């Protein structure tokens, strides 16, 4: 059984990528299982999806702790505290990173246990889908290609099935298939190694003493400490204010749902990049168009 884990962010199509890969494997005659994992967080927050592929019935359940193939759609995740995309990976794990950088550079920079496979999906997605960060078909294609046991025909059929179910227009599905084909042809398969599993023994049952609600309820006594959590790495695009042309109308400040734009003493708006989630409302709403949209991932890493 091959265990494949994908990492990306909400809105990038990571869940769909896992589904497409699972369907492609199924069409190719394998048994397959796919499911995503995300917390209470939303668009822009880390998302993981899992696909298990086997010629035998897949009886294993739960998240994949030790992946044979790791597909990382968003390299910025490698620098975030959680989730830890490299968890469970060792020198036998095949790692794919969506990046324009050379494999040697990636390995050194991120201290990867093995030399990764790299391909920059951003220009491809932009070319075929007109969106730089929608990886569903592209990432599934990477997975299918690296596995080597799924023909392109099955992959394209799976793209069609899954995207049709999501209500995509025929034309969009066609563009996705073209993208999947292009990605498939840009890579070669690798010799995936299936690692030995060790059964983890359950620990002894922890018994908790009953306590009064006053002791045991989650009470927070701090005020406004949520700001300690940084959401800046949710960003796909970054808004940048051109101060030379800004007339301090403060529409951006009024419209920012995060309250991540403050007004400086000078009267100028200032963006808090530690928290800005990159919704780009400010750039859209700025009456003078003086807030530019700059891609965070344009140059790979």
């Amino acid at each position, binding site marked *: 059984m091959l265990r494949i884990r994908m990492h990306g962010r909400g809105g990038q199509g990571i869940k769909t990528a896992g589904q497409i890969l699972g369907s492609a494997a199924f069409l190719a005659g394998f048994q397959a299982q796919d499911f995503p994992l995300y*917390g*209470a*967080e*939303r*668009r*822009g*927050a880390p998302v993981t999806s899992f696909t298990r592929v086997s010629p035998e019935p897949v009886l294993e359940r739960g998240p994949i702790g030790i992946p044979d193939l790791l597909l990382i759609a968003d390299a910025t995740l490698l620098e975030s505290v959680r989730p830890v995309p490299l968890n469970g990976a060792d020198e036998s794990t095949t790692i794919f990173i969506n990046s324009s950088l050379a494999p040697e550079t990636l390995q050194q920079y991120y201290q990867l246990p093995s030399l990764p496979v790299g391909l920059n999906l951003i220009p491809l997605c932009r070319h075929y889908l007109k969106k730089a960060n929608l990886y569903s078909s592209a990432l599934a294609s990477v997975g299918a290609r690296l596995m080597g046991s799924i023909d392109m025909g099955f992959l394209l059929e799976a793209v069609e099935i899954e995207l049709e179910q999501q*209500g995509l*227009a025929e034309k969009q599905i066609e563009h996705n298939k073209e993208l999947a084909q292009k990605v498939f042809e840009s890579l070669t398969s690798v010799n995936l190694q299936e690692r030995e599993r060790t059964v983890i023994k359950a620990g002894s049952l922890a018994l908790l003493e009953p306590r009064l609600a006053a002791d045991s309820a*989650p009470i*927070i006594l*701090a*005020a*406004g*400490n*949520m*700001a*300690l*959590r*940084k*959401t800046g790495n*949710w960003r796909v695009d970054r808004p940048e204010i051109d101060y030379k042309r800004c007339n301090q*109308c*403060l*529409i951006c*400040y*009024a*419209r*920012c*749902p*995060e*309250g*991540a734009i*403050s*007004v400086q003493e000078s009267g100028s708006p200032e963006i*808090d990049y530690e*928290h800005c*989630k*990159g*919704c*780009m*409302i400010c*750039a*859209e*709403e700025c009456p003078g168009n003086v807030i530019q949209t700059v891609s965070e991932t344009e140059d790979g890493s």
Partner: protein
Amino acid sequence: MSAITSNYKKIKDLNPHESLSAGTSLCAGCGGLEGLRLALKELGDDVIICNAAGCMTLLSVYPFTPLRGSWLYTTMGGPVPAAQGVRDALDIRIQQGDMPESENLQVMVLAGDGSSNDMGMGPTSSAIHRKLDFIYFCYDNEAYGNTGFQLSAASPFGGATQTAPSTGLHPAGAELPKKDLFEIWRAQNPTYIATVSPREPIDLANKFAKAKLMKGPRLFICLSPCPTGWGFDPKETHLIAKLARDTGIFPLKEFFEGKVMHNKVPRKRVPVERYLERQKRFQHLFIPVRQEETLAQIQSRVDAYWSQYE
């Protein structure tokens, strides 16, 4: 209404203080969060929020809170009984001299449209009947957004949700009209009702400035464009909110002392299609074939609403 006048005319007049800190896990571009942020700018820190389970559950993730005021988390049907308990406790403590009047807090229920229209409605009706002194802030994203956008009683006719998708048998998606929460509350003659939009910060701030000085049940219905559930790019949240107003789909209005008053009435209403066509939840009304009858019904319901006032 003459005694309470509007104070704010421009963005610079808004309270610069943020009672809601950044860092929450809510979706980028959340219209409801923006509405809440603007409301709390006006209400300040001396508020205790009774929060029904819903999207705003994500405000506080232990051990973090974005609020400088207090927050009490409740079940989806229970925020109003919680508000009653909190209000009573505050009143009793002040009355018994345990707490100075100056430390009194504004009690505010924060609930989504599912809680407000469905399971929380019974206790709410009872609380309005008892003239409970509280503010009710309903962020209306027209579905159970937090769990993946399932149909609520506030989901609009013709919109698709997870549990009411467009199918061969039910091409329109949701087939029932949205419940009219404003009118349901109005039937019980509360102190104040207002609809607000995150796109109209001045209008919103003025309404909260008025309401915070009043006593009794006060309802705010906040249009909450939802990029995730409605299906549009997060940057278009305010554009969608603007179209909701300009098409007349979401009227900005107030109820006070027995009268309904409209604010920011669109001079010439934009066809509803301009609003619908930008959202994935209404896509089936246009693709693969235009559902002329459904579109005409949506338009005629909006026209019928405004004909009462024009």
